[in-house]
């Protein structure tokens, strides 16, 4: 037990890779064996995360379960891991969604072995980002996650996958380029990549040792580096106008790939804002909080409009991610604007906004994964995602219809379900700080309702499309395995909606000491 407690984070982090290696040595023909190994293997990190969750002390500020190992001594980078309430929530989300996504992929029959291995490596990459307390290690895992995702889209995706996967890769790598350079800038200046140290050194730095830039003053360099970070994370979130890779990637990815992409990968960007930008660039973030709020509002409004305009079910859900992630960034912008303020109302409000933003990350992870899975369920049966080809399917598939409405309502923000709590917190926290943007965003919420109802109406209601009613095209009900995938998601959606305190307690402490 001591062993597990001492190495808990590295166990959670590297177990997926270990399971992937085990799968590598299984015979490719044994598809069933491979699937079950992947599923059970991915549940071990989840079980360990539960251990982590319950032994985590949410009354302590700062990082817990820290581990540090030498990695790249020559440039002073160490494998430094640790979690606070923010990371812990994200780790939980990742290890919780991955087994579900693997279960959702049991229908895959083409090269199951490679598929499952890529999935587990993807999980490791994402977990690494959430756990790392070293800037270089953060970047390492940030980039590593790209490769499996690229191949998942490129190999198991639908018709336009080549275009979508390359676009995803180039967008994200191009976006990360500035991040890479800024990371180097920090590392060269201070001779360390350790985040806790950089938190101390960088925000107050007046001079940059080792960097012979004389034609720009340090505040300007910091501003440029700030934007380099922002763009890298904005591409991933994605913020308008950096979002155009997302609908393509989501639409072409295999179902489980979309689940993870929307459920966890987008959170990496928001996590970067919280873990790196706010603590490292509090002043710059405050100066440009208005710009961030503008982009976030644009994402909320345009995302909602774009989703409403889609005729492809999966694209509709994809644009809804742009819309929902906008609220996360709105909350972050509000917190950034309140930095160092003496205004009592602001000081009281920004923690609410941040709590809401982080909870929204978690909630969107649940509902977006669920929505993409449900789109995948119907696509598998009908081989179309065109909304106009559906219609009136509720009587044919009542259970599926019920689940779809439930998940959609979570996405819409119905009180009693999780989305309401987090969006309310964001809006409540941002209102005094960024009143105009928040007001516009709330109008955006109206359109969220519109596109979600449009989606439900086109699929489930209206005159029944007889094509699916009988004969060889007869639509079959959601099966047991698929219900098992949805059940944990629905339980959590309802649970957080009714009683959010258990998770907000963990988040809140991290928020207060974030920067």
């Amino acid at each position, binding site marked *: 037990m001591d062993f597990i407690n001492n190495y808990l984070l590295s166990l959670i982090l590297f177990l997926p890779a270990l399971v992937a290696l085990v799968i590598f040595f299984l015979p490719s023909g044994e598809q069933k064996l491979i699937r079950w190994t992947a599923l059970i293997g991915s549940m071990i990190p989840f079980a360990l995360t539960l251990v982590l969750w319950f032994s985590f002390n949410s009354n302590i500020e700062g990082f817990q379960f820290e581990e540090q190992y*030498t*990695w*790249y*001594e*020559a*440039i002073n980078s160490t494998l430094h891991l640790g979690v606070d309430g923010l990371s812990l929530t994200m780790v939980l989300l990742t290890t919780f969604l991955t087994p579900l996504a693997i279960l959702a992929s049991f229908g895959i029959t083409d090269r199951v072995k490679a598929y499952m291995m890529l999935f587990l490596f993807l999980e490791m990459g994402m977990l690494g980002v959430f756990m790392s307390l070293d800037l*270089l290690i953060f*970047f*390492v*895992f940030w*980039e*590593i996650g790209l*490769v499996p995702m*690229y191949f998942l889209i*490129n*190999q198991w995706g639908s018709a336009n996958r*080549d275009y979508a996967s*390359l676009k995803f*890769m*180039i967008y994200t*790598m*191009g976006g990360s*380029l500035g991040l*890479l*350079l800024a990371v*180097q*800038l920090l*590392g*060269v200046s201070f001779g360390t990549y350790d985040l806790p140290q950089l938190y101390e050194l960088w925000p107050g730095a007046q001079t940059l040792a*080792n*960097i*012979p*830039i004389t034609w720009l003053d340090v505040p300007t360099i910091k501003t440029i580096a700030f934007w380099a970070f922002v763009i890298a994370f904005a591409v991933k979130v994605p913020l308008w106008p950096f979002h155009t890779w997302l609908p393509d990637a989501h639409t072409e990815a295999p179902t489980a790939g979309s689940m993870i992409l929307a459920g966890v990968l987008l959170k990496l960007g928001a996590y970067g804002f919280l873990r790196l930008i706010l603590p490292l660039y509090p002043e710059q973030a405050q100066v440009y909080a208005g710009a961030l709020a503008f982009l976030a509002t644009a994402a909320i409004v345009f995302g909602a409009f774009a989703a409403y305009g889609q005729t492809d079910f999966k694209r509709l859900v994809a644009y809804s991610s742009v819309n929902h992630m906008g609220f996360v960034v709105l909350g972050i912008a509000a917190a950034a604007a309140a930095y160092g303020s003496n205004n009592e109302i602001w000081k009281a409000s920004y923690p609410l906004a941040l709590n809401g933003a982080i909870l929204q990350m978690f909630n969107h992870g649940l509902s977006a994964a669920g929505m993409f899975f449900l789109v995948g369920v119907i696509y598998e049966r009908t081989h179309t995602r065109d909304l106009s080809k559906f219609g009136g399917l509720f009587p044919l598939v009542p259970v599926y219809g019920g689940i779809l409405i439930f998940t959609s309502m979570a996405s819409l923000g119905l009180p009693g379900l999780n989305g309401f709590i987090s969006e309310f917190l964001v809006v409540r926290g941002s209102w005094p700080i960024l009143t105009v943007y928040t007001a516009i965003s709330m109008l955006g919420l109206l359109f969220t309702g519109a596109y979600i109802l449009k989606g439900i109406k086109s699929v489930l209601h209206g005159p029944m499309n007889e094509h699916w009613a009988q004969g060889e095209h007869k639509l079959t009900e959601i099966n047991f395995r698929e219900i098992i995938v949805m059940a944990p998601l629905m339980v959590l959606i309802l649970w957080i909606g009714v009683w959010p305190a258990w998770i907000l307690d963990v988040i809140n402490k991290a928020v207060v000491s974030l920067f």
Partner: protein
Amino acid sequence: MTFPILSVIVFTPIVAGVFILLFPAERKTEVRVTALAAATFALLLSIWVYISYDVNAAGYQFQEAYNWLPTLGIGYHVGVDGMSTPLVLLTGVVMFTGVLISWGIEDRPREFFAFLFILASGVFGVFVALDLFQLFFFYEIAVFPMFLLIAIWGWIKTREYAAMKLTLYLFIGSVVSLVGALAMYWVAYQNTGVLTFDMLQLEQANFSEQFQIIWFLPVFLGFAVLGGIWPFHNWSPDGHVAAPTAVSMFHAGVLMKLGAFAALRVGIMLLPKGAEYWSWLIMAFAGIAVVYGAFIAFMQDDMKYMIGFSSVSHMGLVMLGMSTLNQNGLTGAGVQMFSHGIMTALFFAVTGMIYDRAHTRQISELGGMAKIMPFATIGFIIGGLVSMGMPGFSGFVAEFPIFMGVWQVQPWVAIVASISIVITAAYIMRNIRDVFFRPMPENLEGHITDVTVLDKVAIATVVILMIAIGLFPSVMVPMVQSGVENILRLLGGV
């Protein structure tokens, strides 16, 4: 007397090459087995050197020195430091894998392996040479067989042109360097009264600053031609394309390092003041090579040309690291030489396997290789990730310190050079997608077979190295650093 391990490594290939020539021409299998045995032996010895190299002890290790022509001060002096030890290992690996993937050569394998091994001896000789004359001697030994190997076994369409172009470029480069070396020899004699080519003594020869400034460029650039530095890189892609697979592997994998290494050893280490004076120019050339090479590679349809220009880009990074003259940059350059060596050898090996089966290297005419040769596909993908500088693989471990080093000198260059990362990702990903994953063209259907077991062994060897260095930088970086400290001492303390 201790076992003269470096000499054994240097002369194993050439002795084996001569021995192979004694075989009757039709005993092809025996020739191949002998070649493989010799290559394995050299590889094991170079692994031994690598493992028993003492990182904590400064200076050159495994030294051997004999007089050869004492009146002229020419000796036989070998030894390795932290810079050259990885390169010796690299040569061992490329030689071993090169023999494995050349197993199928049916056209005069006896002569092919003999020339290849003479080439290998020359390469080993340069990496361990501590005597300037000896360095040139082995340098020419390494270059000359290239001409024959390309002209006889090369791609029929361009081999004569490419062989001639390559040889002329490299000979002119080395002659220019040789003039510089002779100048050093005479000036050192005037300064110290000792006639010597021994580089450890030339390091102490107190060359005047003016002398160093005048002679640095000819010496450095003369060697750097072989390193593929822009604007003298033109021979290199042509040479790569025309050469048979194993020779391309040697050429890009090892020979280009020979140029970079000699430029470092002779140019920077013997003329440090000159290096400091001219470093901006080298950095400019290297920076252009990095970005320009990537763009040109992006435009290629022939896989070998693409890899050839990507080598120009990646060797540009080596030169970029060297031009920083600081710890990070030089360390990165050292690791990048190794990393690029195995990566590009892997690229050429897989390209050769595809060409042997499909008889075309045009990306637009290929497709669907992943289904038939999955193992080679995985190998190529991992090589591609190394090339893109993806974290977790050796390329990242090498490129990151190079960029850090450049930041310390010229931040703008780091920013501009980083563009190459995205371009590289684009052409590598496109190549992987087109050649391996899109549907196979109909005319190739049924003609393609999987790679052989020997090919797989070769691929696995380099892939393991790439991942090992990527995950655990400490298997190589401290060693390179120990060599860099020596260079920094010369730069700071002359």
